[in-house]
């Protein structure tokens, strides 16, 4: 391992001098090259969470539905009837910025492995994407590649992609975000942990052969700021093979079904080094690994390369020697390669051998638990650090503003994107993308009973305005989406995408955001079951918008009653519920107008919003409402327009005779806590007993019409055309 001549090897590998010294202390000697490589990865931000672990401690991780919390490959909640849903969201930002197709594809491959590693069959994928403005060729290239890559992997492996979100803004231009979430289903008693157990048991590597993929990926790709030297990192691109993963997944699930395995763990960042030491650490055991037994794709690989390779589609398991035959038989049936590469010892050390020669020997605890954790040094910036976006809208004519918002890439229909994803395979999908505010899936396609809803959200611009309030809003929006389909939140996963935490203002964003996440979860009584942190998302232009992405899973009583977004019946009453405080600063309209980001958002009454969400949920569960939709990006009038578009029917509104002083803010301002519902008069009257409610319109016609206090009429056709704006990104 020759590092740059002028820089000591440990520095080139991303370790500080004091970390390097500490490694020597733990080992009682200088680490050799292999040990240094393994330590550098295990002690990287990506594996050790050294700048975020202390913060994550404040997240609530207990709840009555919780089965597996943070610490396992994926968290899990019970959904009743002995069934569990395991889920997690994870980032693959830096690999996707280098090669979007393979980066996004392997991101999906990785999150799928996390879910079947706990014994759950993956049943749904969601994606959360951020790119620069689509006027940039690079952003279009990244978007196209990432979407194709996600589709390629999910479609090929047969797991539906049922939802997601995407935003386009300047701060993501150089550093895009690609987060993927996966949900899996399992019998509660079948969930498996990754702790290695049973001295003398065998360590078996399953799946793809090991090549020089992503060597140093975790420390070089995932934890260093991107710069113009991207080119030098090229050889580390990993290629995904969904067909391999499909067979590995089926083999693993069958092995778990038969109770063949003692424990199971996926290989992700830092490859064998990380997965083996994590397994040993959780099981409080040691492992001997013979790198000579690892099936290789390329000849002459060094032991360190074998240990840190990030070749995809591999799983590691521990089994009793007597069960090896059974494992081999199942692997053969699925045409999955398997090799015994080591065994469980009581040494609590990770010993790497090549044949008889010991080439590395490290205490497991030092690798997994002893990386120094750093305190952040947060300082709130005195002024907004992000530049104002370019002004692209001058008009204040309400119809023109509405159409401009509908065609804004952050609001326009996502159809050109999600049509590239199979949302149907598995026969569970009750509400497809854009049909309802959250995706709805039945648990058992045979019996049809039991259902869940899932949503993923996080508007980075709002968080950039106010990291605390913006993060609270992300959680509330997720929960609001669930409420609209009648689902009660069970658990939450999150991915914290931030810039360089060693910078005081980024540290402040991260700590405020985490505090907001914790408070919102407590207020809604939803535990955090797991997540992921992606730091150093920066470029020469500065950090990305702070972007906590929240994924929430809820349960439904009756999937058939899940309300659609769109208006459905001519003559239905249109009502607005809740008492949001619409506010233009920080909104999508403010963005189009080139307004600078504010440094604060109005505080939210969490308890009140929770109450309103519960009222909506109960009304939807009662089956009386025709539609339900939450007010979010673009505010009130955009929400109504979306209801018209989704249902293919217009509406007429009478907003009263006193013109509000600032009607622009009132129509297009943003704030959590508002819902647009439609239904028969009685249903709306019933609902009014449990939530503040204004009746102000009727469903019908071919246009969205406001009669008073301003006059506006925009045809469905014009709205549809505006809302189709994303298609141009995929030509």
């Amino acid at each position, binding site marked *: 391992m020759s590092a740059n001549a002028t820089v000591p090897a440990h520095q080139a590998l991303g370790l500080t001098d004091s970390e390097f010294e500490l490694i020597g202390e733990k080992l009682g000697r200088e680490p050799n090259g292999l040990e240094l490589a393994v330590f550098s990865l295990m002690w990287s931000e990506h594996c050790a969470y050294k700048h975020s672990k202390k913060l994550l401690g404040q997240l609530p991780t207990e709840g009555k539905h919780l089965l597996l919390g943070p610490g396992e490959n994926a968290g899990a909640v019970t959904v009743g009837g002995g069934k569990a849903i395991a889920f997690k969201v994870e980032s693959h930002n830096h690999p996707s910025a280098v090669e979007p197709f393979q980066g996004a594809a392997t991101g999906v491959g990785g999150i799928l492995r996390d879910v079947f590693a706990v014994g759950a069959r993956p049943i749904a994928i969601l994606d959360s994407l951020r790119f620069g403005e689509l006027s940039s060729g690079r952003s279009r290239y990244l978007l196209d590649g990432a979407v194709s890559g996600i589709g390629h992997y999910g479609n090929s*492996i047969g797991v539906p992609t049922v939802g997601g979100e995407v935003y386009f803004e300047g701060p993501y231009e150089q550093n895009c975000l690609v987060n993927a979430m996966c949900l899996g289903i399992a019998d509660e008693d079948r969930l498996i942990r990754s702790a290695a157990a049973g001295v003398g048991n065998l360590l078996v590597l399953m799946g793809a052969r090991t090549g020089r993929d992503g060597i140093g990926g975790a420390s070089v790709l995932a934890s260093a700021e991107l710069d113009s030297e991207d080119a030098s990192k090229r050889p580390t691109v990993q290629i995904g093979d969904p067909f391999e993963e*499909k067979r590995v997944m089926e083999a693993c699930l069958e092995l778990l079904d038969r109770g063949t395995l003692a424990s199971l763990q996926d290989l992700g960042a830092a490859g064998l080094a990380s997965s083996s030491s994590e397994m040993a650490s959780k099981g409080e055991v040691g492992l001997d690994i013979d790198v000579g037994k690892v099936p290789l794709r390329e000849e002459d690989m060094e032991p360190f390369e074998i240990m840190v390779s990030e070749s995809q589609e591999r799983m590691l398991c521990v089994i009793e020697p007597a069960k090896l035959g059974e494992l081999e038989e199942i692997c053969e049936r699925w045409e999955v390669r398997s090799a015994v590469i080591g065994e469980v010892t009581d040494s609590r050390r990770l010993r790497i051998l090549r044949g008889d020669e010991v080439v590395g020997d490290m205490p497991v605890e030092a690798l997994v638990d002893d990386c120094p954790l750093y305190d952040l040094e947060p300082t709130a910036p005195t002024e907004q650090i992000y530049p104002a976006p370019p002004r692209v809208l001058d008009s204040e004519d309400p119809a023109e503003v509405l159409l401009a918002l509908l065609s804004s890439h952050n609001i326009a229909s996502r159809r050109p994107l*999600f049509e590239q994803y*199979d*949302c149907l395979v598995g026969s*569970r999908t009750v509400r497809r993308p854009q049909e309802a505010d959250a995706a709805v899936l039945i648990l058992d*396609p045979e019996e049809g009973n039991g259902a869940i809803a899932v949503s993923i959200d996080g508007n980075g611009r709002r968080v950039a305005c106010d990291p605390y309030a913006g993060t609270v809003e992300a959680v509330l929006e997720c929960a609001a989406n669930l409420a609209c389909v009648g689902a009660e939140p069970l658990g939450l996963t999150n991915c914290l995408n931030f810039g360089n935490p060693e910078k005081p203002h980024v540290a402040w964003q991260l700590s405020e955001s985490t505090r907001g996440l914790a408070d919102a979860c407590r207020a809604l009584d939803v535990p955090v079951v797991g997540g992921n942190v992606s730091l150093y998302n920066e470029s020469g232009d500065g950090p990305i918008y702070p972007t906590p992405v929240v994924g929430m899973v809820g349960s439904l009583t009756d999937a058939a009653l899940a309300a659609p977004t769109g208006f459905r019946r001519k003559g239905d009453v249109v009502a607005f519920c809740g008492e949001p405080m619409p506010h233009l600063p920080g909104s999508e309209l403010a963005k189009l107008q080139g307004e600078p980001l504010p440094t604060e958002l109005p505080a939210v009454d969490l308890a009140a919003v929770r109450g309103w969400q519960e009222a909506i949920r109960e009304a939807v569960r009662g089956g009386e409402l025709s539609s339900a939709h939450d007010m979010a990006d673009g505010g009130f009038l955009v929400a109504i327009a979306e209801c018209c578009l989704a249902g293919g029917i217009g509406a007429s509104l009478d907003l009263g005779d006193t013109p509000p002083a600032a009607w622009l803010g009132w129509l297009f301002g943003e704030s959590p806590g508002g819902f647009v519902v439609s239904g028969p008069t009685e249903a709306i009257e019933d609902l009014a007993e449990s939530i503040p409610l204004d009746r102000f319109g009727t469903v019908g016609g071919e246009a969205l019409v406001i009669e008073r206090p301003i006059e506006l009429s925009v045809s469905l056709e014009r709205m549809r055309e505006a809302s189709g704006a994303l298609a141009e990104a995929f030509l």
Partner: protein
Amino acid sequence: MKFGVVRFPGSCDEMDALLACRRYADAELLWHGDQDLKGVDVVVIPGGFSYGDYLRVGAIARFSPVMGAVQEHARAGGLVFGICNGFQVLCEAGLLPGALLPNNGLRFLCRQVEVEVVNADTPFTHGSDAGQVLSVPVKHMSGRYYAPEEMLGEMDAHGQIILRYRAGFNPNGSVADIAGVANEAKNVMGLMPHPEHAVDPLTGSTDGGLLFESLARHADALAAA
């Protein structure tokens, strides 16, 4: 009457097809590595990516052991129904005329489309009327049906064009809007849309059920005769 749904290592919609079949008759899975068709009356080749669909869709799957048995079953007049990837496999195997090329748009496309029954006088469609419109989803990357002109003429003459996309619904550039075809004897059919994803009002339309029901009735009638 029994359906058998072939499972390749890369199949995706095999459980969906199995459940759809079970709404109308018995059904079980057949393993790609076995040559035994377990006495089923109708073989269903489901959607997915059989062997990863590397090289060319369906190219490798056609050589699997089970496909040998399916060839024999078809030659003996047995019913074979290929959905999406199954259609591609049957074309590659020479059991159906033509080939499926990458979509004109070069992208994977998942959407609900409308198709029209062209020939209602087959074991697959006798439960419908000619001209009947079905709402079913498509989801594929390589669904552009192609056959040379001469072949198309013959297929037309023999009533082998079974389903067409309605005007405005052709998602992939298929020649003559063809969505599903049969062999000359009409015991083998393939289609790009997914009828197995249109059998339950909870998850979509129910128009696809008609094809499974037609097959089940037909096989029952054969058995009774």
